[in-house]
């Protein structure tokens, strides 16, 4: 057996052998010299070079001596040192870095001296001080003394590119990492090089070409390349990759020094991508979060929400002690008393005529989700448990049970990136996908993206997507009736159809997607928005699903789970989903509610009436939420940074994270375990390990235990709309007024200002009004109009942006018929 026989794939790669500092190294053809040197542990100083960005050769710091064989086979040295970050290796090349070549060392020291000429000596006030590549490399590769005696160039500082990103131009060494990132990776080119020579600087664009088109951020911001006010969801990455302190974030400015900080690896709680992050904290307070490198998930990048939105958990309304309602007031009490009061209350208010129900937000971990559904089914004896605090449907549940739960790793980020064609259904990659958008954009030019949506968003335009116009809620018909070329493209191997959380608001879309998949061979990927959604599906925190994708309606599946849990039987009654539970509670049919991590403003139902009519409400919350204020017992739980657990990202990848900050706060699963003891029941969810062992023992459902695939007929593609009405299109913007973004005004300023979008024809029908009132019987929202190239008969408003809280104010979701009236 030979090594070559073992690895036929490795032999296929063409390699090149060269010598660096006397060490022979063999690397794949096309490798840059600087990368080849890294492989043999030779460090070459650099600023502009970044493995995820294209070579630029902008800073000239990586100069090395290079000699390569000429046509006659003799080594011929380049007359001058060459930038190792732009030159690829060639066979027989001899490279001498600063370690072996005096010439290279002299060149590097000269470049460093030039870079430092205009760099201010303000390291003591600079946020990068202590973790600055320029500082470090000036020490290791610079001259000890400067020969520069003149006055340094100064600029007005800082220049606020947006409310979050600040630019100190005098610190800039013009490496262009930021401009390359924004052009190549994010597609939000908001800064670029300007001027020449000594005045060359990174700058913003001319404000005179301002062309407001509805993507204006909430806060003040500079203008980008296209003349639009800059609002990027990925701008924070430029701060992290800036090799000097030129780009800083307003939130972290002057807050701390790297040696103060304790770094803990973690997973972002903000979206279903499960991006790897690093939490930097000091004395129990999170100071900042950075992207961690995870090549299979988020690569080097995270969204601004992942990076900046962490203040919510330490706001003044944070709960630390249990609260019990006494004489109408919530008063702090001890854990034993609160747990006893909670159990007594639930027992007293439930019986034959009134059951209990459990509402879970989509933000909990896999372990927490498992504990919630086990409490519901074992202790409370009900299937009324749902972790979808959003629009949901039975069709979606059937799809999740039959196709998603317990299927392990499905379509991955890598496969999504390599897919020749991607069809997006009820999914806006930039707003609802986070780093999914960056992966799709990475394949720009190699991948065809088709969006089934009411209009082509700016995010979709950045993906060069084509639009299959569909009225909100009518995506299923568009999916069933795809253009022939798209259908053909989908039959290529690796093609992917992405279903977002809004597919649940489009009846028949899951059925249509399954049909499409079976007829074309395309793969399906369900990409929900919230971090805990996929985990909740795996844990069975849905009314009709038991752990591992078992159908709660099938006797065999119930018995298997009951046996594993050591209980006689599981509840047989059909469970209600979130909307059903809220509606039933408002009618007084629910005796007791256990609510964990739900924002009342995310639900379209009348939550206030439901809480009022319910006999007893137990709330598990990090902060004093609207629901906690109305609860009878409030049990404080830990935010993600203060607990360990697992998020399951949309791929089905387990994203476990450890406790970053150790406090007394308990995770939901531990609190529920204690609560169950009040009934004398051992829930077995006291620790993360215990829950994971139980989940592993349960495993995935057998084929016979799964629910049937959904079969829902799609409604007509274009309904007849009455005059003055339109179909409501709406989704969450990435940066909006979600509860997990509270307390971070700088980030909020980069979110997009709320506007109402409609087609020219729809706007004309309203008499060309500057702003419109979108209303239902429940309420109204007034927003400025932006005429967009979109389907007629629909109006789009953001779901939870400033001045536009659709669920709370309109009590309606996407696809609902709303009245649209022009205002002054």
């Amino acid at each position, binding site marked *: 057996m030979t090594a070559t026989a073992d690895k036929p794939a490795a032999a296929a790669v063409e390699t090149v052998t060269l010598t660096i500092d006397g060490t022979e190294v063999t690397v794949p053809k096309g490798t840059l010299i600087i990368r080849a040197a890294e492989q043999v542990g030779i460090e070459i100083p650099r600023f502009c070079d970044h493995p995820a960005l294209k070579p630029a050769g902008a800073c000239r710091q990586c100069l090395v001596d290079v000699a390569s064989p000429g046509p006659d086979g003799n080594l011929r040295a380049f007359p001058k040192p060459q930038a190792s970050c732009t030159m690829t290796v060639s066979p027989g090349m001899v490279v001498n870095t600063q370690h072996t070549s005096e010439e290279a060392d002299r060149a590097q020291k000269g470049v460093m001296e030039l870079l430092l000429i205009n760099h201010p000596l303000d390291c*003591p*006030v600079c946020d990068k*001080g202590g973790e600055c590549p320029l500082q470090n490399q000036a020490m290791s590769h610079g001259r000890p003394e400067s020969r520069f005696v003149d006055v340094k160039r100064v600029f007005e500082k800082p220049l606020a590119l947006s409310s979050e990103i600040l630019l100190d131009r005098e610190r800039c060494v013009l490496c262009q990492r930021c401009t390359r990132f924004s052009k190549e990776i994010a597609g939000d080119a908001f800064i670029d090089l300007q001027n020449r020579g000594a005045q060359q600087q990174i700058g913003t664009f001319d404000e005179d070409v301002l062309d407001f088109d509805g993507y204006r951020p909430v806060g003040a911001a500079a203008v980008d390349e296209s003349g639009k006010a800059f609002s990027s969801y990925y701008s924070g990455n430029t701060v992290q990759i800036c090799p000097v302190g030129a780009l800083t974030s307003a939130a972290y400015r*002057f*807050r701390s*020094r790297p*040696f*103060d900080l304790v770094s803990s690896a973690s997973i972002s709680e903000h979206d279903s991508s499960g991006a790897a992050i690093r939490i930097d904290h000091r004395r129990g307070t999170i100071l900042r979060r950075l992207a961690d490198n995870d090549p299979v998930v988020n690569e080097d990048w995270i969204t601004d929400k992942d990076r900046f939105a962490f203040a919510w958990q330490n706001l003044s309304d944070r709960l630390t002690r249990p609260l019990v309602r006494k004489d109408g007031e919530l008063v702090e009490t001890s854990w034993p008393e609160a747990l006893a009061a909670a159990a007594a209350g639930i027992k007293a208010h439930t019986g034959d005529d009134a059951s209990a129900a459990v509402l879970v937000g989509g933000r909990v971990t896999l372990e927490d989700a498992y504990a919630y559904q086990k409490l519901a089914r074992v202790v409370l004896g009900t299937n009324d448990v749902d972790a979808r605090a959003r629009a949901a449907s039975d069709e979606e549940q059937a799809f999740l049970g039959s196709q998603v739960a317990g299927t392990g790793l499905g379509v991955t980020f890598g496969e999504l990136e390599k897919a020749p064609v991607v069809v997006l259904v009820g999914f806006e990659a930039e707003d609802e996908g986070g780093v999914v958008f960056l992966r799709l954009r990475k394949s720009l030019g190699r991948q065809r993206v088709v969006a089934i949506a009411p209009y082509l968003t700016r995010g979709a335009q950045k993906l060069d997507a084509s639009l299959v116009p569909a009225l909100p809620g009518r995506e299923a018909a568009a999916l069933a009736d795809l253009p022939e070329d798209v259908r053909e493209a989908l039959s290529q191997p690796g093609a992917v159809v992405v279903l977002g959380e809004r597919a649940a608001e489009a009846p028949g879309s899951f059925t249509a997607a399954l049909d499409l998949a079976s007829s074309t061979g395309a793969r399906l990927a369900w990409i929900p928005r919230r971090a805990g959604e996929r985990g909740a599906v795996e844990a069975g925190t849905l009314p009709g699903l038991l752990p591992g994708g078992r159908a709660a309606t099938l006797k065999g599946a119930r018995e298997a789970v009951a046996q594993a849990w050591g209980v006689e039987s599981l509840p047989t009654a059909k469970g209600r989903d979130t909307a059903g539970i809220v509606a039933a509670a408002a009618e007084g049919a629910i005796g007791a509610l256990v609510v964990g991590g739900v924002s009342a403003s995310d639900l379209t139902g009348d939550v206030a009436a439901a809480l009022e009519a319910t006999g007893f409400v137990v709330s598990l919350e990090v902060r004093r939420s609207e629901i906690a204020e109305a609860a009878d017992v409030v049990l404080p739980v830990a935010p993600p940074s203060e607990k360990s657990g697992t998020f399951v990202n949309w791929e089905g990848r387990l994203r476990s994270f450890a406790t970053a900050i150790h406090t007394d706060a308990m995770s939901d699963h531990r609190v529920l375990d204690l609560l169950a003891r009040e009934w004398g029941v051992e829930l077995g969810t006291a620790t993360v390990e215990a829950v994971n062992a139980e989940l592993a023992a349960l495993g995935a459902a057998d084929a016979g235990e799964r629910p049937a695939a959904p079969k829902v007929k799609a409604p007509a593609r274009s309904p007849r709309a009455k005059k003055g009405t339109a179909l409501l299109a709406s989704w969450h913007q990435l940066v909006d007024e979600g509860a997990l973004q509270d307390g971070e005004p700088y980030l909020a300023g980069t979110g997009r200002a709320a506007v109402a979008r409609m087609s020219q024809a729809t706007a004309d029908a309203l008499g060309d009004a500057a702003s419109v009132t979108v209303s239902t019987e429940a309420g109204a929202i007034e927003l400025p109009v932006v005429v967009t190239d979109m389907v007629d008969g629909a109006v789009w408003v953001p779901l939870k942006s400033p001045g536009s809280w659709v669920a709370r104010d309109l009590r309606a979701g996407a696809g609902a018929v709303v009245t649209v009236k022009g205002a002054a």
Partner: protein
Amino acid sequence: MSGSDEVWKVNRERDGKRETFESNLPKKGPIGEALAPVAGFGVSLRNFFRPTVTEQYPRVKTPTMPRYHGRHQLNRHPDGLEKCIGCELCAWACPADAIYVEADSNTPDHQVSPGERYGRVYQINYLRCIFCGLCIEACPTRALTMTNEYELAGPTREGLIYEKQDLLAPMGANMLAAPHPMVPGTTDGSYYRQEVTGPVDEQIAWVREHRPSDPTLPEHRVDAAATDDAPHQVRYTSPQHAAGERHEGGAV
């Protein structure tokens, strides 16, 4: 033979060759030998006729050497702005981890030091401090220096963690208490080059507008000529760290 056996053998051989101890001191004569038992009293006798060196501390306080490493002090610029920019280099340099600093941004309404950054929290823990002075060397703005004050004892541990207001230098004769704007037309560089020599009218007007009763305003200032050491009597103490409580004891 193992290595340790070898060493043992060599040592034993060397022991055999070692000579007996003999003092290098010069040998005394016969009279010296005779008086040797009482020679020690000679030292006492000699000192009967010398001036005493007993220090009457705390009744009399002896001045220290000029460069004695005593309590730290956070200095001010001549116009009263603080020199500390909250860079934490002192905390970084500290081998005893005695210094804790948190910085913040200066704003037009709250300008504490020249430039963009100031030290919002500044603590030195005198239970940890070893008075090595590395923090003084590290300070890029000469904000942190050491005084000759050595009376650093107290009845509580908390009391020995000095806060910023305990460490700030007393206000000089003409200084105007921070926060107030920088001298118009200057940068932080002007301050470091000592081009600012005192508060200007604009700064006084600003303080007058925002804090009319500020004791460092010219109209409220005690005449410096009347009480020579008036500036030194201004103490900056927080309610929790009242001077009396710190130095004269009291319940924990």
